[in-house]
């Protein structure tokens, strides 16, 4: 039942009309116009399809999805990059400009005014990216899974990001204090207790938000998985946090000796994790490659659905190399599902020139194909 997955209420539309790139990855100077519905970006490997998606992601999240260091984003031999996105949001035109000189400055302007805090931008232009390296959610360490939680909740709730930044800062100070005290052989219990107190409020809020988010997406996640995988197995995820059973105050106290030896804080929400299961067995060990791909895809679509409901706006959906995850018939089924339900603006990259076109043909929706060749767009 698709009606159960997406609520029928017409959401406020968000879409990117025009993108201007300067010195961004392999784009020296390029302007691209988009369709408000479906955009198929085709081209051979290494031509810059994914980079185009990353530029859109950057405009929404004020950072690249793929590289943490802006030095790898700016085109080689240049010292700055600029992105301009002309959006339509809540029936108004909005212009977002990103200007970055790596290592020096990052300015983001909304309609000509620069943000004093970049965090204020997050969540105004919700975005979800689905890319082949999403499987790192399953295969890599807990950090990747916390990033998934933080990415979603930062976009859905501005207070979450504020509290997360506060929590992380206090943790860094507490760790520095533990280290300094060990070097000076002088332990100051009052100072550590002070940091413990300061952690309680943001930690409680972050914990509650994470828990409630995971509870909310659980049923949708299962439905998406069944649709994509067409398998009978059951999938589930569990929130793993020590805060489920103990208060942070108790945990910090219990782990104090350990913290003093290791000179860092060993318990807290910065150690939270998610456990993924397939038919009650750990996903990582027991699932096939295909099952893992379907699993993370369902998770990302659940994230999309969650943001859509909270924001009452369809996030921009970036599908990078989706055919790597699914065969043509499944992609068709997925697009069918997405487009029938007021899914907003979608960008799909594909190496195959006509595959998306063939799928879209029967769906009767607005659509634009563009070919990318060496950082240039051929309409």
């Amino acid at each position, binding site marked *: 039942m698709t009606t159960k997955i997406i609520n029928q209420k017409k959401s406020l539309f968000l879409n990117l009309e025009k993108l201007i790139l300067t010195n961004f990855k392999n784009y020296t100077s390029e302007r691209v116009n988009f369709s408000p519905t479906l955009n198929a970006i085709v081209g051979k490997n290494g031509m810059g399809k994914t980079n185009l998606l990353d530029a859109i992601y950057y405009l929404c999240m004020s950072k690249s999805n793929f590289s943490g260091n802006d030095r790898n984003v700016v085109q080689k031999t240049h010292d700055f990059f600029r992105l301009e996105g002309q959006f339509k949001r809540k029936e108004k035109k909005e212009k977002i400009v990103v200007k970055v000189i790596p290592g020096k400055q990052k300015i983001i302007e909304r309609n000509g005014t620069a943000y004093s805090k970049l965090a204020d931008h997050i969540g105004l232009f919700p975005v979800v990216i689905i890319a082949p390296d999403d499987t790192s959610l399953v295969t890599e360490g807990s950090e990747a899974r916390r990033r998934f939680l933080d990415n979603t909740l930062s976009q859905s709730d*501005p207070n979450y990001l504020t509290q997360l930044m506060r929590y992380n800062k206090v943790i860094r*100070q507490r760790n*520095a204090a533990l280290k*300094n005290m060990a070097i000076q052989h*002088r332990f*100051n219990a009052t100072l550590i207790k*002070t*940091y413990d107190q*300061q952690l309680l409020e943001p930690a409680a809020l972050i914990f509650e938000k994470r828990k409630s988010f995971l509870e909310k997406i659980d049923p949708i996640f299962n439905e998406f998985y069944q649709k994509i995988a067409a398998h009978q197995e059951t999938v589930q995820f569990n929130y793993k946090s020590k805060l489920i059973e103990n208060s942070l105050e108790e945990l910090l106290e219990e782990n104090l000796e350990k913290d003093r030896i290791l000179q860092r804080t060993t318990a807290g929400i910065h150690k939270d994790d998610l456990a993924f299961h397939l038919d009650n067995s750990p996903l990582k060990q027991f699932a096939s490659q295909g099952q893992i791909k379907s699993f993370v895809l369902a998770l990302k679509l659940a994230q999309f659905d969650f943001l859509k409901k909270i924001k009452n706006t369809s996030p921009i959906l970036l599908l990078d190399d989706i055919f790597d995850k699914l065969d043509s018939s499944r992609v068709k089924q997925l697009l069918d599902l997405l487009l029938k339900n007021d899914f907003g603006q979608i960008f799909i990259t594909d190496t195959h020139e006509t595959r998306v076109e063939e799928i879209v043909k029967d769906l009767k929706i607005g659509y634009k194909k563009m070919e990318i060749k060496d950082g240039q767009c051929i309409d």
Partner: protein
Amino acid sequence: MNFSSKLIEEAVNAFASLPSIGKKTALRLVLHLINQDKEVTGQFAEAIVKMREHIKHCEICHNISDLAVCEICSDARRDRSVVCVVEGIRDVMAIEDTSQFRGLYHVLGGVISPIEGIGPSDLYIDALMQRIQKGEIKEVIMAISPTIEGDTTIFYLSKKLKDMKVKVSTIARGVSFGGELEYADELTLGRSIVARVPYRINE
């Protein structure tokens, strides 16, 4: 920048080493001094040398002072039962400018920030404890910036002061005067609502 004179170059570099003065401003200042009488420059230099030579930190509150004990601490008209704890001397000046406070000060010399290598023992915290132990002080007002490090310092001090017989208060945080509510940031406005104060009609 090319200079025709080594002497000018040295003077420009000296001015330019000061905060918020660039090379061009420095050159303007130097050229200005050249056009003045020699005496003016002499007085100017003397004022700086004398200031640096004789300036002290007050033994009691660690504010900047000409004498061993500063003017505020030695002023008999000030209320000795209230101490306002601040990060630096600029905060003392800012609060003095309000003319709303008649108590004494205590300058900490910063806030606790282990990342920058500043622990409690690097600040005048023990000196504050000793002042309070003398018994004259009844209330400690924390006038410290509402940053994470500021909060840590307030928390830490309150823990230290818990068993002493003093009232601890912090300055109010909220919407600024003349400001409009819709432009106040969410955190400030939220706090102002939570920490609202009873409304009094002055008759």
